[in-house]
């Protein structure tokens, strides 16, 4: 199309899918009331930042009169209720980040039936009734890390796998990406357990793996905090850190740069929160959008990490971000 709306760097129309939301379908005069059902604002520091990115993007647009952020707190039933409450308040657009692939389906259907456009991101849904969908794809994320290990190990060796929260769709998808990357290689998973994306559980698991058998060629970690924990275990025992996967997180970048180990940081930016708001704004402004977008960028190498790394910000800053310098400083500055 003539003028593509740029939702976020790295977000592109899904190849081979030409469904569009026609221009002016949801056009409305401002000020708008935009609602967002977030799957869990306080699940971890990434989810907090994603909420901030959304709020910040909404604030930047003077036509957004009110931005309502509801927190499902990782509960499916709360998410169903939250979407119902947003519809009851007659918002102009609803942004949903689903708790699970089905938790938002009924709400999405209801909202769309009520004439409210629905944008879905950060999490898959089973329904396709939504208006616009932006998917990062955990599977891609896991595969980027898997491919890195396959390449580093020359297609042969033993790895550990640190997984996220059991039964969480993101964990399942990332793991599926790993499995795909390993297909046809001689890489064996010799130890695997849930570190729940947390530093302490990750460390417990990694310590148990290490003390059981420290011989390992590579580590696939489903999240940055667990990577940091596992690196600390090796450091603690004075052992060399094998190739280990990371994530676009400032704390991890610092440790990566300092130790110079072999790693890769697949990209999954909290800026998606802003992308969702930008999509809602575009719809209300009457701009045409694709129905489906994908967000599958290449992983970051250490050079890219060095460029992004901010020693003046805290370990809990995630990249890429569209927060203003001022916001970054106030949220993450080491004062």
């Amino acid at each position, binding site marked *: 199309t003539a003028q593509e709306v740029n939702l976020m760097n790295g977000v592109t129309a899904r190849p081979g899918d030409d469904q569009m939301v026609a221009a002016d379908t949801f056009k409305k005069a401002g000020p708008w009331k935009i609602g967002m059902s977030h799957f869990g604002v306080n699940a971890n520091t990434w989810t*907090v930042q994603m909420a*901030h990115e959304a709020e910040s993007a909404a604030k930047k647009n003077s036509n957004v009169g009110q931005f309502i952020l509801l927190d499902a707190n990782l509960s499916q039933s709360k998410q169903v209720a939250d979407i119902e409450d947003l519809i009851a308040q007659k918002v102009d657009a609803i942004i949903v980040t689903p708790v699970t692939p089905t938790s938002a389906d009924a709400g999405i259907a209801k909202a769309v039936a009520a004439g409210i456009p629905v944008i879905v991101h950060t999490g898959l849904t089973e329904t396709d009734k939504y208006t616009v969908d932006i998917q990062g794809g955990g599977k891609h994320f896991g595969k980027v890390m898997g491919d890195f290990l396959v390449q580093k190990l020359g297609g042969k060796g033993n790895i550990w796998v640190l997984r996220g929260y059991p039964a969480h769709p993101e964990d399942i998808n990332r793991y599926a990406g790993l499995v795909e990357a390993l297909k046809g290689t001689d890489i064996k998973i010799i130890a695997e357990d849930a570190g729940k994306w947390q*530093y302490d559980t990750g460390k417990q698991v990694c310590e*148990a793996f290490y*003390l059981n058998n420290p011989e390992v060629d590579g580590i696939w970690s489903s999240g940055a905090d667990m990577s940091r924990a596992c690196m600390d275990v090796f450091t603690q025992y004075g052992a060399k850190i094998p190739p280990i996967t990371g994530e676009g997180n400032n704390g991890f970048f610092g440790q990566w740069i300092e130790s110079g180990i072999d790693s890769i940081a697949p990209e999954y930016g909290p800026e998606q929160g802003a992308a969702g708001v930008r999509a809602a704004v575009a719809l209300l402004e009457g701009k045409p959008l694709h129905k489906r977008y994908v967000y599958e960028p290449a992983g970051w190498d250490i050079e890219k990490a060095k460029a992004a790394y901010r020693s003046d910000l*805290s370990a809990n800053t995630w990249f890429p971000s569209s927060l203003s310098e001022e916001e970054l400083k106030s*949220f993450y500055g080491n*004062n």
Partner: protein
Amino acid sequence: MATLARPSLRALTRIPPSYVVFAVLLVTLWLLKPAMMNPNILATFAKQVAPLGIVVLGQLLVISTRSIDLSAGGVILLVNYLISSGFFGAWHPLLLVALCLGVGLLVGTVNGLLIGKRRASAVIVTLAVSIILMGFVEYLANGKPPGNVPMVFRNVYNARVLGVPAPLVFWFALSLGMSVLLAKTVFGRFVASIGSNPVSAHFAGVPVERTVVIAHVMAGFLAAVAGLVQTASIAVGSVRFGPELVMNSIAATILGGVIFGRGAGVWGPFFGVLSFALLFVVLTTLGVQEPGKLAVQGLIILLAAIFYGVRNSTH
């Protein structure tokens, strides 16, 4: 039946189930992986549960006075936030520690006054306080998400005292302190009396309300201490704290033979906590995954509790 009446055997039935569980797990590990029966390795795992162990010290105290404390999760989260947010970046670490301990004392006091003086339900009061604290951290984290933990905390955490990891020494020292408090002080006598019969305690001149309040204040304080240890071990701020720690603290306490209104022993729950650590190691060594881990852990606690319960009901 008749043999149970023999004093030595009767005493045996009073051994907390946690001792049995611990011994069984140790033997299992020894059979599975003799190489892991190394003091250094075991100390590493024990170190992981030091925060839980410290929470348990407070928990066993309030449970002995027929109350309960579910607020530890909130206290730990707030302590973690205070240290990692950088709000008090300019403060001397000791001052920061004092602030955190003060928060623990304050939370314990609120719990204690509402439960002891106001006689509101302990479960709901401490649950609500925990929710408030978590909400407070969420609110603060909105303005400023938590960040790095000052290096000193990590250094202290990783230090060793005579070759033993510092957190372990610290936990053991606190346990010893609690054990002395309960066994050797008037306060300990008050706790035992209230646990046995609060009405009789009142008529015997035990300051019941005050004792319950103090028990809660101490539990709040210990939760803050646990928060400090936990924060030092994670070395980074977090916005969420799972409910497992509080639930495990109750389970370890009861597994240690301290049941509402009975017990006040420290070492039973101490080994209850160690059993949790050991169980994790054994299951991970066996390659048991999360679903199996949950089920097996549940089954083992249940069997231990049943074994204990049946023994106790037959005499």
